[in-house]
Structures are given as C-alpha cells and as structure tokens.
C-alpha cells in the first residue's frame, strides 16, 4: 500500500460532539492531522483527550460530527480503520503471563499475519524498541518502562500507518522517556503518522511539529508548534539581542531604525540583553545585525523570542478543574 501523500489529512475531525449523560465531553471539536507528522494532543485533565482518542481508535462511537481516519468513517469503516491504526491506551493492556515474544506473536496472528511474516516483523519491532534480549521474559517480570516498550511493540506489530498514543510516557523515568521519544522520532522517519497525547509539554515541544490544545471539550489551538510558540501577532516580531556588554550607542541606533517599535532596556544592571519589537514588513533581522555592528556593539546572541509551550498552554487553557 502506498503511503498517504505528505500533508494530506490522515485524521479529519469536524464538529465532533460527545456527551456522557449530561456531561459534555467534546463540544464541536474540529481539527486535522497531516500524514507523517507527529501531532501532539494536549489539554488539562478532563479536557476530552482520551474520549477523542477512543473515538479515533473506533472503541467509542461519535454521537455527532464527522470523524474520518484515512478517509474512512470510524463507524462505517471500522475494521478498515483498525487495520491501519495502532492504539496504545493510557494503561497497560497486557497478558502478563505471556512472554514478550508470545504476546507479540499472538497479536501478529490476531491481525492475520503468517508465521514467516510475524517472525520478521517481531524481530524488527523488538530491535526498534530494544527488547530483543528480553523477548523470552514473562511480561509480569518486566519493569514499567520495559512493559511500555512491549506495549509500543504490540502497537507496531501489524505495521500500522497511524499510531494513537495516549500518555505513552506517563510514569516513566527520564531515561525511559527520552528513549521513548527517540523511538517515536525513528518511527516518523519510517513514515508513520503519530498522534500523541501527553502532559509532558517540554518533550512534546521538541518532538511534535503540530499540536492541538483541547480544554473543556473545546479546541483552543490547532496548528504548528512553531506558530504557537512564535512571539508577536504575525505582523510584529520580538527578538532577543545579547551584547558582550551594555552598549547605549547600539540601543540608540536600533531605536532609530524605521519599523522598530520598541527597544527594551536590559532588565538588570550590567546585563546586556535587549528585547526588540519591530514590524516584520519594514525591518529585516539582517538590518538589525548590521546596525549593531556598525555602531560598535559586540554581538553574543541574536534570535527570535519563542514562548515556551508551557506558557502557550497556560495562556490558552482556563484555570481550575472542570465541573
């Protein structure tokens, strides 16, 4: 099967609404996920992330709205969708009395893979998750991090094109988390689309190219991580300039440039860090650098100020627990 073209939507959700009795879990949620991207899905507890993931995994029927995965409706094309996705829930869904190999072999056979094909793919996923040496171990004897790897290996055993991962890094130690993120990077390189829900924003910020922020059943943001973390409103840009020492002539020259809106003085005495806000249409960063050099300033660092994902998250979501 040919992989979907780049940027074509693998997941398409339009006006999705889901209620648990009278509680509105999802309220007209709409977003898309592009092929071969790593798309982060974040939100406070109770925002509706797991409900969305379960609907995408065809475990829960959407009550209103359109949900398509690879162009197939998750209700009418449920079995086709299931063959193309791998869902890793937020808890360990494992037969602990099986060995790692038996567990993967079982799921491979359940997906209808022949023995030769299973042997090859199991060897591949064990190598990818670095579990080859532990394939004979019973699952219940593995540590949490190891079980998480086996869980991920299980999701990959039928070679799905889309991975739906619900909190895959929860409860893992820092090393295991970093290794998991490396595996996900590798999977993207192999052409998989990854839709990942997580609370660890710092890791999502470096891993994901797209992100959707959900709060109280409503999408607060969906788009690229770069756009979300970029400062300014699109017309203006905010840059940080660090000089070797405080240099008032440079600051004065910069303030006089056409399009420069504000040059903020160093926050602490002796600290030569300036914040520059300017109009993107009138002023280019190269012109700023040239001006500083010409005025005799010694540049140590220069770059666009980025909001951290944490800050964006805090700005976009409401405080408090959802009633």
């Amino acid at each position, binding site marked *: 099967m040919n992989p979907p073209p780049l940027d074509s939507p693998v997941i398409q959700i339009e006006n999705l609404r889901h209620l648990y009795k009278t509680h509105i879990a999802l309220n007209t949620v709409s977003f898309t996920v592009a092929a071969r991207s790593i798309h982060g899905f974040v939100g406070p507890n109770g925002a509706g992330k797991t409900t969305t993931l*379960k609907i995408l*995994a*065809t*475990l*829960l029927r959407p009550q209103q709205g359109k949900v398509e995965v690879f162009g197939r409706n998750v209700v009418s094309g449920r*079995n*086709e969708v*299931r*063959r193309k996705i791998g*869902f890793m*829930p937020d*808890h*360990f*869904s*494992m*037969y*602990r*009395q*099986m*060995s790692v190999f*038996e567990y993967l*072999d*079982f*799921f*491979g*056979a*359940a*997906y*209808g893979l*022949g*023995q030769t094909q299973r042997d090859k793919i199991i060897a591949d996923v064990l190598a990818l998750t670095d579990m080859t040496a532990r394939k*004979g171990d*019973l699952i*219940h*004897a593995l540590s949490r991090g190891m079980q998480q790897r086996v869980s991920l290996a*299980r999701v990959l055993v039928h070679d799905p094109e889309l991975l739906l991962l619900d909190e895959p890094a929860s409860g893992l130690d820092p090393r295991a988390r970093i290794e998991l993120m490396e595996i996900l990077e590798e999977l993207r390189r192999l052409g998989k689309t990854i839709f990942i829900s997580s609370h660890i924003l710092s890791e999502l910020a470096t891993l994901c190219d797209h992100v959707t922020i959900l709060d109280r059943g409503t999408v607060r943001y969906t788009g690229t991580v770069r756009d979300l973390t970029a400062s300014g409103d699109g017309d203006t840009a905010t840059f940080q300039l660090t000089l070797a020492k405080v240099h008032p002539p440079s600051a004065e020259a910069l303030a006089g440039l056409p399009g420069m809106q504000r040059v903020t003085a160093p926050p602490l005495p002796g600290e030569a860090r300036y914040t520059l806000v300017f109009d993107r249409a009138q002023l280019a960063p190269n012109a700023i650098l040239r001006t500083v050099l010409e005025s005799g300033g010694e540049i140590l660092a220069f770059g666009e100020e980025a909001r951290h994902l944490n800050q964006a998250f805090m700005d976009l979501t409401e405080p408090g627990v959802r009633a």
Partner: protein
Amino acid sequence: MSALLALFVRSLRLHVRSRAVAVTHAGLVGFILLLLFVSHGTASAVGAPGLSFFKWVMLLNLAVLTLAAVSYFASAITEEKEEGTLGLLQMTNLDPLAILLGKSTTRLCGALLLLLVQVPFTLLAVTLGGISVHQIVAAYATVGAYTFFLANLALLASVLAPRTSVASLLTGGFIFLFPAFVLAMQSAPALAALPHLRGKADAAAALLAHWGKALAEASPFERLGEVFVTGFSGSALSWQIWSNLGGGLICFVLAWALFDVTSGERRLFASGRLVPRADSRFARFAPERPWLISAIAWKDFHFLHGGRLVMIVKSVVYAALCAWLIWYEFRAFQGFSAAVAANVATPAARFASAASGIASWMFFALAIELGVIGSRILQDEVRNKTLTGLAGLPFAMKHIVLMKIDGAKRALYPVLCGLVLAAVGAFCALAMNPGNASMSVLFAGLVVGYVWTQIWLFAHVTARLSLRMRWGALPLSFAVCFFGNLAGMIMCIGIFLAPIVALILVPTLRESIYSRLEALAAED
C-alpha cells in the same frame, strides 16, 4: 477500637448497609415464602410436606454456599493482590490476623447471617408436618459448620494463590475431588479383594476404609441424610460439626501462619503462569505458535483454560471416574444369583445403568466447567484491562466472543468425550434390548435436551453477570437458574418449557454481552 478489629468492624458495617445484601436476603426469604406457600398448597397430596420443603431449602443452601466458596470466599485476599492494595494494607498497623478477620471473617458472618435470616420462615415447616424443631436446629448446625469450613478453606486458598482464578481452582478442586478421594478410600477393601492382591493389603485397606468412612461422615450431605430420617432424635452436635469446625480452624491458622510468606516479595505460585514454557522440563506441554485461524482461541485455550497439561489432567480424572463407574456397575451385579442376574442384571441393564451414571457425572462436570468458564472468560479481560487490546482488533465483538468460545470448546473436549462414552453405552443398551427403544430414546432425548439447554443458559447467565459484578456472578447465576428451574418443576412443565426459555434467552443474552463488552472496552 483495637487495630485487630478495626477492619473487621468497618467491613461488617459496610456489609450490613449494602443494598445488594439486603436485596439478596429479601430475595432468598421471598423464595422460601413462595416455596412454603406451594408446599402448603400441595400438602394434602404429599407425605411429610414440611420435610420436603425443608430439604429443598437445605439443598439450595448447600449449593449456593459451595459456589460462594469458589467465587466469593476465594477472592477475599486475592482481590487485594490483584488490585495491588494488599501492600497498602500491610503498611498500616494492621497485622495479618486483622486483615484476615477484616477481609474473610466478614464474608463468613454475611453467609451465616444469610442462614440466620431464614430460620423464622423455615421453622414454619414444622406446622406443615414431617419435621421437628430439633431436626431443623440440627440441619442448620450442620450447614453452619460446613459454611465455616468452606469460608476458611477458601481463605487459605486465597492467601496461597496470586489470583482469584487460582484460588477458585484450588478451592473448587478440593471441594469436588474430596468426595472422589473419600470414595476411593472406602473402595480400598474391594480392591484388596482382587485375586492378585488378596491377603496382601488387607490391613492397609481396612485402615483406609476406616478413615474413608470418618471423612465421609464429615460430609454435610451425609449428615443431612441422617438428620432428615423421620423420628431423628440424635444430638445436634455431631462428628460432622466438630470435624468441619476443626478443619476450618486449621485452615484459618494455616492462612494466618502463611500470610506473610505468600504476600511478601517471594510469593507462592508467583510465576504468574500455570502453562509450562518452551524452555522448561514440561516443554512438550508448552503452547505452540498461535493459531492463525483463531489466535484468540489459542490464547484462551492456553492461558485461561490451562492448555494441554490441564486437558490431560482432566482427561485422566474423567477417564478414571468413568472407569470406576463402569467397574462399580458391573461389579454390583456379581453377587446376584444366576437367575436374578438373568432377569435384572442383563447386559442391557448394565450398559444402561453405566451410561446413565457416566452421563450424570459428566453433565455435572460440564455444568461446573461451563460455570467457571462463563465466570472468567470475559471478566478476566475486563479485570486485567486487556479488553481494549482485543476490542481494537479488526473484528466485530461478536467474532471475538465466538473465538473465545472456540477456545473454551477445546478445553471441554475431555468432558465431551465422557458424554460421548455415555451415549455409546446408551446406544449399546438400546441395541441389546430394542423392545421399548422408542420410549427410552424419547425420554433420554427430553432429559438430555433439558439438561444441556439449562447448562448452556447457566453459562450465558454467568458470563453476562460477570460483566456487571466483580465477584459472585457464579453463585448468583446458579441461584437464578436453580430458582427458575424449580419454579418450572413446581408447575410440572419445566422439562418442556425450560429448554424453550433457554433457546430464547441465550441469543438475547449474547447480544447483551456483545453490547456490554463494547461499552466496557470504551470505558476501559
């Protein structure tokens, strides 16, 4: 309040306040009243209606308590192990005795209360005639002691086992194999009388038979048989009561002594796996590669039903039981004179008797096996949170359940072979005596159809209830099916109506199971 009793008192309070407990008590009393009403209505047509009524109540009590031991009592400690909360309990200042009292003795008290609540109503049996207050007191003492033994036996299994399924298996294995063991001990003199053993093992056989008799007298069924004899005037306190209380106490003390050993880091049976592994000494019984045609059946057959090793053990047990039944049947006629044997102990009669004996035991075993399978086949997936993985496979839930039934079917081959053997015996009997074959076949067909459909319905009710209840699905479904069949029998149409009811209910239950599983997979 001392720490020793803190958990016990709290659990008892919760038990007393529980709505489910109140409903169970009310349901039981309501059924007894219905039974009483029917007995009163038919009093003129039945000899000793009070005795007959009371026998039914006691039979029901023994059946429900035995099933409760396998499910309710056996999960007392294992449910904490499965939830991972036993360690938290141990971190408090509760010592093992307090945990045992809190977790198990409360359940025992609940069961005893269930017996106590019946007493005012069952005493009315005296007014119906055929039974005395003394007999009623003796019968309740018998059942009470048996309850004490069962609760503590199951507690010991629960302490030893890592999971409820293993605890249930240990308890059920003891309860159902114990009578066979006792029977074997009592048969020792007959074996010693065989030509090549004659005179060599008489003393040992006599000793075994003596102990076998003592153990048999510890059975509540045997004791109730004595109590229900008209004019019973023996003591209410018998060897059965003392032996059951003593046995229960020993089990409790053992559970207490072994609690720390089995719940700590180094647990007994803690391999987490009953099926042999490919690199073990029993590699020949290890699971082969998953079956491509039905991987879920492979998983269930090996990892839920025990695989080939358990199947071999069951085959040996059932084969031994069948062999013993055949041997007993043919030996029983040996003492008859040639004239009597020619008329009564004809080969056809022997075959018919052996076949009916085998069929009865095999249907009993099938009911137990299907009940246990029904209670675990779906609940284990829910409890272990593995349902999401299965539900995510590219099959409809109906297909997944059918594959699970396929796995269960394979586990039932030994008992089904026993039933085939019974059918062959019956066919031989018919072939030897074709005189009234059509009537015999019709009657046998009716009985087999009735039993088969009821067992099938029982398994489905158990499976459905197991998706609602964490424990107790097995005894509750037994009670539901038992009451339903009893009502049918009382109305004298059960044998015709019950199969039809089962055939209507089973597909409905299946649909309900599919939708419930889908809902649980989404909730998981």
